[in-house]
């Protein structure tokens, strides 16, 4: 019985091929744009999460809020000492970030910021951060004028590529490049240059300044409890609350909230086209009903009930939505893969598109539902036609 509805609906759609396809095309375009936007932003969110997992859920950061350009961080080596005295931590990594340092390589000058961190246990820290070396290796303890280049810093900062054993001069000191890193897939990390923190303190005259502290928690400890303990210890020592502890959960929450808002705005703008597409379905169905007034009259006079007619037209409009949904989802995914490929070529290979079955299923259901909803009014009109009037009807 239900099968008959589908057969009739399909036949009717084929009979007016051009109109059906134009109506379906409207749905295709809007579903494709919605699917593309959602899958791109979900891909972005997923890859950000992935990077966090890589970075370890066993670490948190101590920073000073604001971080406006030109402000000093206000963290010092005293704070590092406080944290190091807490037994819950595997180790504490203080960072000193020195923005825009002039450096020279093969007679060319360039500016880059420096990340300075301890040379002690350098191997382990690099490993924990999932750094992999393309060339060379990490700092040896006691090495002074040595540098490690991120993959982009090695290739893009100077005209000539930087390799292990090359010499870079900064502030009248000659640094030997001991390592070049593999790409992380995002420009920020790939553009970094690392030097030992002790060297940076001497060279840039920053005896006790710390830009950021990275704390790795021993396995088995609850990170939020430990972070709270660190907060109290720092508050006691510093006698102020002029710092902030960022746990991965907090950062992730903030990032996905921001991303969620952007996604919601863009998707709702794109969804406007779906409304327009739905109006198109409604229009096309009204025309169908009108053209088939006579058919409806005949069907009714040989016993079709109102709800049979209604269902017939609803199935037809639902079909338009469904077919538009399928093709739209396919095209949407193709478009988002295109964007991902483009982003990768621009240095952001972290954007990965995952096929999300929930999105596909939801998109299909939604498109079908939109089709059926837009068919309700026209179907009602069809079902309410009087058989006699309908039979008598001429165009």
């Amino acid at each position, binding site marked *: 019985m239900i099968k008959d509805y589908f057969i009739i609906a399909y036949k009717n759609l084929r009979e007016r091929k*051009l*109109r059906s396809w*134009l*109506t379906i*095309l*409207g749905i295709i*375009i*809007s579903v494709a*744009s919605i699917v593309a*936007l959602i899958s791109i932003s979900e891909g972005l969110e997923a890859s950000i999460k992935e990077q966090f997992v890589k970075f370890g859920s066993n670490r948190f950061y101590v920073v*000073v*809020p*604001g*971080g*406006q*350009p*030109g*402000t*000093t*961080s*206000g963290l010092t080596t005293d704070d590092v000492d406080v944290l190091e005295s807490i037994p819950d931590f595997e180790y504490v990594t203080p960072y000193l*970030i*020195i*923005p*825009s340092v*002039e450096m020279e390589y093969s007679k060319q000058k360039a*500016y*880059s*910021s420096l*990340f300075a961190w301890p040379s002690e246990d350098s191997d382990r820290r690099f490993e924990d951060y999932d750094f992999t070396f393309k060339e060379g290796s990490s700092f040896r303890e006691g090495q002074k004028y040595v540098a490690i280049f991120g993959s982009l*810093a090695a290739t*893009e900062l100077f005209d000539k590529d930087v390799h292990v054993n090359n010499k870079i001069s900064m502030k009248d000191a000659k640094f030997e490049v001991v390592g070049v890193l593999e790409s992380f897939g995002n*420009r*920020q990390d790939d*553009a*970094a240059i690392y030097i030992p923190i002790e060297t940076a303190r001497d060279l840039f005259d*920053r005896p006790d*300044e710390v*830009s*950021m502290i990275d704390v790795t928690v021993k396995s088995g400890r609850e990170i939020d409890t430990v972070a709270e303990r660190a907060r109290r210890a720092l508050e006691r020592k510093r*006698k*102020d*609350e*002029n710092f902030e502890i960022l746990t991965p959960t907090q950062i992730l929450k903030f990032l996905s909230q921001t991303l969620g808002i952007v996604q919601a705005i*863009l998707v709702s*703008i*794109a969804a*406007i*086209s779906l*409304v*327009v*597409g739905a*109006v*198109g379905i*409604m*229009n*096309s169905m*009204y*025309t169908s009903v009108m053209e088939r007034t006579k058919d409806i009259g005949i069907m009714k006079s040989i016993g079709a009930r109102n709800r049979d007619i209604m269902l017939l037209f609803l199935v037809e409009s639902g079909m338009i939505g469904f077919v538009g949904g399928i093709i739209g989802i396919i095209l949407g995914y193709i478009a988002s893969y295109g964007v991902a490929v483009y982003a990768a070529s621009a240095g952001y290979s972290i954007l990965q598109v995952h096929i999300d079955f929930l999105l596909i299923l939801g998109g299909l259901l939604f498109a079908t539902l939109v089709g059926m909803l837009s068919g309700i009014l026209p179907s009602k009109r069809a079902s309410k036609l009087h058989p006699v009037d309908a039979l008598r009807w001429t*165009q």
Partner: protein
Amino acid sequence: MFAEYFKIAIKNMRNRKIRSYLTMIGIIIGITALIALITLGQGMQKSVTEQFDKFGTRRIFIGPKVVTGFSGPSGVTELTQKDVETLEKLSYLEYVVPLLSNNLQVEYNKRKEIIGISGIGTEDIERSFTDLQVELLEGRFLEERDHYAAVVGYRIATDLFDKKMHAKNSIRINDIKFKVEGIFEEQGDRNYDYAVYTPIETMRELMEKPGAVSGITANVKQGTEIEVASEKIERALKRARDDENFQVTTPQKIKEQTGVILGIVNLVVAAIAGISLIVGGLGIMNSMYTSVLERTREIGVMKALGAKNSNVFGFFLVESGIMGFAGGAIGVAIGLVISYGLTAAINTTGFVTISMGFDYRLILFGLAFSFGLGMLSGTLPAMRAAKLKPVDALRYE
């Protein structure tokens, strides 16, 4: 002749009212979204750039170099008092005001908040603010003899702490007692309304950084081109410092940069909204194909009576153009109303201010665009109508 096309088109549209209205609704929705979003975007762009205009045409900012692409979070002052002295010697500068900013803990009425505080050179502070039309609501500006003294932005004084702050009140910054000497008038701009200023020497003392400077503003004397002055400053600093670890910018430059970024955002949003217009155009096309089909006989009769292909083409095209135009006109009107409403709503939240512009070019564009879209969508159906053979068309059932 053309009037005739018009009459026929209107009549035909009236004959199939529901279909015509539904087709127009598609265009209305699309144009409404487009106009509302563009108007909002332009308003935002305008209010942002207006803020830079407030700086006037004589102000120059000097700050540490920010390297795009290869820069981590900056966290260190790279300028020093020596740079301020270099600038003070330049004859084409009217005054030079150094700044040293940092986030510090401010306590008032038993509440602690972390606030960005700017140490500022007191010598020309009054001129520097009044040149920007930033006036005081209460009290006075900072003076050279002030030590633990502060001038506070309007929002910090009124909203941030549960109790209102007034001149002569005391607050604690990093646990040191400061006297509030003045309170700024409300500026409607976060940069001023949430600002706290203290003398730069006090700030250096708090941060234990003698001679530190995080930014410098300089005013160019009347008669000197600002771009010329900014180039000269660059050269002078380069010579004195023997490096290029600084950046000289003018409000115009920043304005251009932010304008470009906002323009891109607007373009993306408008493009996404534009998708609905494509869908709406498809709706017109569909509706026109149906019209042609239904009126096949009519076309046959007209042709038999001597209508040329171009006549038939013309009146279907006019019909689809009218549909687009009418939808566009209604869409423009609704879009403007919505954007006025949203602007008013957003402005009352106080988060950002959006200025409301009435851009007649946008309205003309909206109308012309929807008319063009209607005609474009009607072209294929109209061509099919024009090419019908009279005999076939008459025979059609």
